[in-house]
């Protein structure tokens, strides 16, 4: 990457070209906007070298750690990265996100966290079953388990004892009584541009599209809009995907804010040209 002074150009930083990256690239190219795709795997950054001021970078790495660290380096070198480093730090970690949402007065599922095997089992005696164990960092439903009783909890937590230390940060989330679906809302700047319901398939309780769920268009009500905007602001997000559940007891609960959100299914189901909106927003970002 070389220094540019032209602020009407965009850089799309990727490590894999998925539907979303190609859609953003083609949206810009078709409208004559200067966009350069840069493979993060080819990037060589001198952290004490030339600055990248005036560069607007759309961060689209699917690898969280590549995304986080390349954002830190590029933002530190003066580039405007969407989303910014602080957003990536918070959104990439469910515990960090939970605390930001909670302190902003946004309803989230109840969570307890512990830092040892013994404390985890003791805490669950009080917190109760069923409960969900989640890694604080991770996506696509990986390593998320529904613990129906103490035997299940012991088995899963014992396994975690032999894994990377991150997995010994025990994060237990209440199992929310809700319809078999969740909501993914896409926020660009201060606008909720589209939302979908994500239904779980068959007996699967997880609703991640990566696990084969199906999607339907979701109306953007005033309540949904308010909670999504508030959540985006809580994490200082610019372009994010807000995930919500419809709790039968507590109404809309935000359980995640995604800083490199996927939106293929949202475009397919709603017809909203999110890729065009991302390009338009990014061009005005500084």
């Amino acid at each position: 990457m070389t220094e540019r002074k032209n602020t009407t150009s965009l850089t799309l930083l990727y490590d894999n070209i998925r539907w979303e990256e190609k859609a953003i690239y083609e949206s810009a190219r078709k409208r004559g906007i200067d966009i350069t795709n840069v493979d993060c795997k080819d990037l060589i950054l001198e952290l004490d070298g030339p600055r990248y001021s005036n560069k607007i970078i759309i961060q689209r790495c699917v690898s969280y750690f590549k995304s986080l660290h390349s954002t830190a380096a590029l933002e530190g070198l003066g580039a405007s990265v969407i989303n910014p480093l602080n957003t990536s730090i918070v959104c990439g970690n469910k515990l960090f996100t939970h605390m930001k949402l909670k302190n902003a007065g946004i309803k989230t599922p109840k969570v307890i966290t512990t830092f040892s095997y013994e404390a985890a089992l003791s805490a669950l005696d009080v917190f109760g079953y069923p409960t969900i164990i989640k890694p604080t960092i991770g996506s696509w439903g990986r390593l998320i388990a529904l613990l129906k009783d103490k035997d299940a909890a012991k088995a899963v937590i014992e396994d975690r004892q032999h894994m990377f230390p991150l997995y010994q940060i025990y994060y237990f989330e209440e199992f929310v009584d809700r319809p078999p679906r969740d909501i993914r809302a896409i926020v660009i700047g201060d606008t909720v541009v589209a939302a979908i319901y994500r239904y779980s398939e068959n007996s699967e309780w997880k609703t991640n599209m990566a696990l084969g769920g199906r999607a339907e268009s979701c109306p953007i009500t005033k309540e949904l809009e308010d909670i999504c905007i508030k959540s985006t602001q809580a994490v200082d997000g610019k372009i994010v995907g807000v995930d919500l559940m419809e709790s039968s007891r507590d109404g809309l609960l935000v359980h995640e804010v995604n800083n490199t959100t996927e939106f293929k299914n949202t475009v397919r189901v709603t017809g909203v040209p999110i890729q065009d909106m991302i390009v338009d927003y990014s061009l005005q970002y500084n």
Partner: protein
Amino acid sequence: MVKCKECDAEIRIPDDSIEGEIVACPDCGSSYELVKGADGFSIKPSQLVGEDWGQ
């Protein structure tokens, strides 16, 4: 058109392909990343799903 490095089947590269895009072999399912060269696209094996992938 390129040849799959696993099973030698032919993989069609769509006209609107861009560098970095993933293509899959229609016969064996192996995934490849497109690499642009002077003579058009070639392929290299793509990374399997990483532990930190997704959103």
